[in-house]
């Protein structure tokens, strides 16, 4: 009687041990599978997001062309630094460079002197520039010092870079009609008929900008 009970106890212990072992194996396998899938998903996400983050590009350097190419430049009316409203329609008949920029953007600072020079050079041929500040900032409305500093920075930048052409504020409101404006600088070259002839996201070179300006100055004449 006692012997049979002892055997049963041993058998139960053995079964319990095997059961716990199986459970542990399942748990380990489940966890390993979870980790593997997590890492694989992270790798896929990292690779895909890197591809998405390549910001620079233009219509002629292998990057996807701007959806605005060949279309009329979307109309806008924004305030300049003095509070005066300036609309795109007031530039009808001009060859126009619409240059979106931001104070925090190093490449913008680099290309601004080129734009100033090219404007002077081609003004007599009916070429004009509109600079549109597009800070794209995520500062909350509660960050009053941050927002005030930003406004001062725009005026300081304009003065420091001798931007004699109209500079408008609130370019972030044009992100949707102008194809996202995901990176600065972004430039649109508009011919005398108001059609976007070339677009450039990111800095290229002064020569490249001049070539595009020649295109719009000559186009439509």
């Amino acid at each position, binding site marked *: 009687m006692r012997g049979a009970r002892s055997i049963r106890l041993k*058998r*139960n212990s053995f*079964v*319990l041990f095997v*059961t716990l072992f*199986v*459970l542990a194996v*399942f*748990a380990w*396998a*489940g*966890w390993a*599978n*979870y980790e593997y*899938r*997590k890492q694989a*998903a992270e790798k*896929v*996400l*990292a690779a*895909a*997001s*890197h591809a*998405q*983050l*390549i*910001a*620079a590009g233009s219509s002629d350097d292998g990057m996807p062309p701007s959806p605005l190419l060949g279309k009329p430049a979307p109309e806008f009316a924004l305030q300049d630094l003095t509070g005066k409203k300036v609309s795109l329609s007031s530039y009808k008949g001009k060859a126009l460079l619409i240059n979106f920029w*931001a*104070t*925090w*953007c*190093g*490449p*913008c*600072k*680099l*290309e601004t002197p080129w734009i100033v020079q090219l404007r002077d050079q081609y003004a007599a041929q009916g070429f004009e520039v509109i600079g549109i500040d597009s*800070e*794209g*900032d*995520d500062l909350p409305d509660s960050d009053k010092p941050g927002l005030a500093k930003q406004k001062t*920075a725009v005026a*300081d*930048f304009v003065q420091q870079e001798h931007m004699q052409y109209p500079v408008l504020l609130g370019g972030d409101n044009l992100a949707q009609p102008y194809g996202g404006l*995901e*990176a*600065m*600088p*972004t430039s649109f070259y508009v011919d005398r008929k108001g059609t976007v002839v070339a677009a450039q*996201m*990111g*800095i*290229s*070179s002064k020569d490249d900008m001049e070539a595009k300006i020649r295109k719009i100055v000559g186009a439509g004449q």
Partner: protein
Amino acid sequence: MKTRHIIPAALFASALLSTLLCPGAHGQSFPSGKPSQSTAKLEAVQYLYPEQVTLPAGKTSPVALHFRIEPGFHINSHAPKDDFFIPTVFSIPADAGVKLETASYPPGADFVLPADPDTKLSVYTGNFTIQARLTAEPGDHLVNAKLRYQACDRTACMPPKTITVPIDIVGK
């Protein structure tokens, strides 16, 4: 419990356990090969670790925070050379139960844009670490710290961004 009862119970339990521990098959979904636009745009800087730290409550302690910048991009260091540029700044909200006493940032590396070889920028690339000194109140605090940065590649810059740095900080 009889042996014949143990085995089915064990199989049921193991099946249940493996189901719970295998979220890829059932519960939590993972990103597909084509992430959404909004997810991809968040990835210029990623917080790596630690996800959880235990600190002696009320005592200021060092914590190293590790971040990764996507290849091909750089962000301004904490001390950019141009006043117009936006520095990288780590912060912790005031009501988090954890106070950021100091944050020590790595020095920026010199970086030159191809279009302007004469101007040196002070930037971070690759991985970087911020040495924070934190004081935690007793208890478990899920802290949503912030990292503000502004990223560029060699020709263009993206708008400044503030990302959440989630850290579970236990003050003991």
